[in-house]
């Protein structure tokens, strides 16, 4: 079965490319990146700040059910072109990983489908491999998301 999300990571390179085709019109896909409430929902994180403009910045923070912050990230937005492109940095706080540069390209495929191509550039090939092999912060984040989903279901009844 063809996978919807693909990762291209060549040996000894310091970047990787993630591609994904969505059953969504381009404007809806882009909106999922532009509106803080929606970003918060699918990223499973609190969006403290999201300034969608050149020289803008963003801040994400995720807490466990006890209120302890388990994940904190921030970045600077270098380009924000509606329905086309976002260029930004991404830095996890309190983690031994250097800041990374992300190029997000949004493309229309048909009226009802779209494609995201995300290139991530790391400080070194080693760091890229480390991030690929050990999605530690993400792992915690995902576990947290699942927990949130479960709690959400219970609350909604």
């Amino acid at each position, binding site marked *: 079965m063809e996978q919807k*999300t693909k990762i291209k990571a060549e040996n000894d390179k310091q970047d990787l490319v993630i591609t*994904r085709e*969505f059953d*969504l019109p381009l404007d809806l*896909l882009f909106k*999922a990146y532009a509106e803080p409430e*929606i970003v918060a929902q699918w990223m499973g994180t609190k969006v403290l700040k999201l300034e969608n403009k050149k020289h803008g910045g963003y801040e994400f923070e995720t807490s466990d059910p006890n209120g302890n912050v388990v994940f904190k990230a921030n970045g600077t937005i270098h380009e924000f072109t509606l329905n086309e492109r976002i260029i930004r940095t991404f830095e996890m706080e309190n983690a031994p990983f250097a800041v990374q540069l992300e190029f997000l390209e949004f493309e229309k495929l048909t009226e009802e489908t779209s494609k995201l191509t995300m290139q991530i550039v790391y400080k070194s090939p080693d760091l890229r491999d480390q991030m690929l092999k050990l999605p530690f912060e993400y*792992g915690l984040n995902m576990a947290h*998301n699942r927990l949130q989903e479960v709690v959400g279901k219970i609350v909604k009844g």
Partner: protein
Amino acid sequence: MEIRRDVFQAIADPTRRAILSLVAIQAMTPGSIAENFESSRQTISKHIQILTECELLEQQQNGREIYYHLNAKKMKEIADFIEPFRKMWDDRFNKLESIMKNYQPKK
């Protein structure tokens, strides 16, 4: 084939991934690994055992203490080592897709 499946089972668990990422930075004793988790020491030691059986962790005797470190070679041997990373993005994007399919513009 069986070993391969075991390795994937090993890295499919978030706690075990967290253990791998801890020992990737420095070799650690079971006690110091367990300190990073709220689970019991027995639970963590079970996870360590599974990772060791899959040869993802290696033991190293240092005086009286046993230290665990990451078997980088084994990690490289996993041809599809990026699968958890891909899965993570796939889950995220699936979620994005389902949220946006139900999106109602605010008016």
